[in-house]
């Protein structure tokens, strides 16, 4: 998905306001920010003439197989558990500065995104990831620090 304009092209463009937004463009922006979902637009969901666009849009928002909600995929066959991503991940450091932030074992495991389990990195709590939520940014801390390209975002 590239931008809100592309999403707008697939909407009914009638500005009916049934979704609660002031215009279809506003709805597209909200879609882009993951505040709303395609099914929040009643005409798009119910009217048969928009069926094709609705299905296309729903497939855009479906997560890929094996990926977490932020699109993070760990290739377990490549990862060897060096922990570079665990120590480099900004939310990990912010939530556990004296544990993983200083290169040690995690002290506050419930808030960490990446941990090493059985020699392989495991993603959890993806809600904390900077690629997620309202103020998301294209953080790539875990990708650039991986020597074997075991982490990927889709």
């Amino acid at each position: 998905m590239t931008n809100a304009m592309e999403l707008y092209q697939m909407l009914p463009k009638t500005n009916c306001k049934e979704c609660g937004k002031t215009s279809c463009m506003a709805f597209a922006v909200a879609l882009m920010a993951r505040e709303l979902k395609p099914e929040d637009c009643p005409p798009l969901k119910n009217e048969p003439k928009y069926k094709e666009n609705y299905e296309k849009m729903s497939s855009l928002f479906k997560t890929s197989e094996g990926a977490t909600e932020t699109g993070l995929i760990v290739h377990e066959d490549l990862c060897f558990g060096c922990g570079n991503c665990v120590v480099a991940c900004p939310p990990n450091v912010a939530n556990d500065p004296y544990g993983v932030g200083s290169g040690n074992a995690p002290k506050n495991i419930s808030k960490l995104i990446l941990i090493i389990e059985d020699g392989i990195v495991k993603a959890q709590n993806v809600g904390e990831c900077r690629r997620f939520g309202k103020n998301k940014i294209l953080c790539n801390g875990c990708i650039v620090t991986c020597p074997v390209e075991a982490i990927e975002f889709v």
Partner: protein
Amino acid sequence: MEKNYYVCTGCGLLCDDIEVESEKDIINKVYTACRVGVAHMKEGKEEATFLVDNKPVDEAKAINEAASILKNAKNPLIFGLGTSTNEAQKLAIELAKKINATLDDTSSYCLGSVVEAVVNNKVKTCTLDDVRNKGDVVIFWGSDPADSHPRHLSKHSYFPRGKEKQRGWEEDRTAIAIDIRKSHTAKICGNYFFQIPQGGDAEFIDALIAGLSGKLPKTSYNYPPKKILELTNILKGAKFGIVFVGLGLVYSLENLEPLLRLMKALNEKANFHLVPMVGHYNMRGFNENLFAETGYVNSVKFENGIVKHGPEFSTVESIKAKTVDAALIIGSDPLSSLPRSIAKNLLGIPVILLDPCKTLTSKNAKVYINTAISGVESGGSATRMDGILVNFKPIVETKHPSDETVLMKIMEAL
């Protein structure tokens, strides 16, 4: 809540923050350890085995057989010990003295010369904790910790935040890789990867020294002088620099003189330390224990209280020249790791092997005792690659005897 942490003895880093979930002496889950460490810890084993001529015997018979081999030998070789605890190493030194043996470990064809320079105070060294707290310029020369010591960069040298380096790798540290190929570590170093041709290390050192003193750096392989000067500028600005010396550099140099010269030149302009990238978890421990006892780090021969030292007493040379007539090998697999032309001489002499793994050497050994994996099944202490003493306790219980117990019993039988 205070957690129960274990020490991983998978490599020279001796990570001391490993969490383990185990049930009935079987390890289920390992947290924080890398794949090397997990494989090392999960290496489950069956019953204890004592083999003589590849036939199972009881413990007493195996020990007696080992003792009689050592008793009858004029010049036995004791070799290995890189994966034994300090306690077992000290016993092996005692044993070597008692039976007038040649004693050596893998460091004679590994990083022995570098460790020797470090323990003799020929170069400045520092601990890995210093690296984490203060290090700003980190050089990996001929070493690839991303593969050999997976947690080196994430636990100590590059990524973590330390006391004086709060902003971590992004702003506070520069990692430099000098290698002959683009290793995984070099990939992380990005633009600071300097690829040199095989055997080009000595010339590169000379070029760096020239660059440091403001001369034009020249190499026979025409390395761009601009890039070398860029590197020397980074080195000059280092407040706490570290050179992690790996086997790639040691094998490329005929002797350590160029490296020592470089360290001197670096310390005139900046503040640099050297840490050997020791692979086996307690190779440095062996070097230090033997140094405390004899003044040499490896390749010694005991003869009625006198200590002889020289390259002719190293494992490779003594097996090659057939000067030894029996071998006690502890935690090493020379038949696989030494060149065939040399290793085949081992087949002609009786070999006693103490090792947790079944290897090519164990198949061809006269006496084979399956010992406990130290750090997983037996405890003790070991010396980390930077010289810090680490104590560890066993994670699971085992029927296998530790190296230390077996050595003790062999000594008693003698």
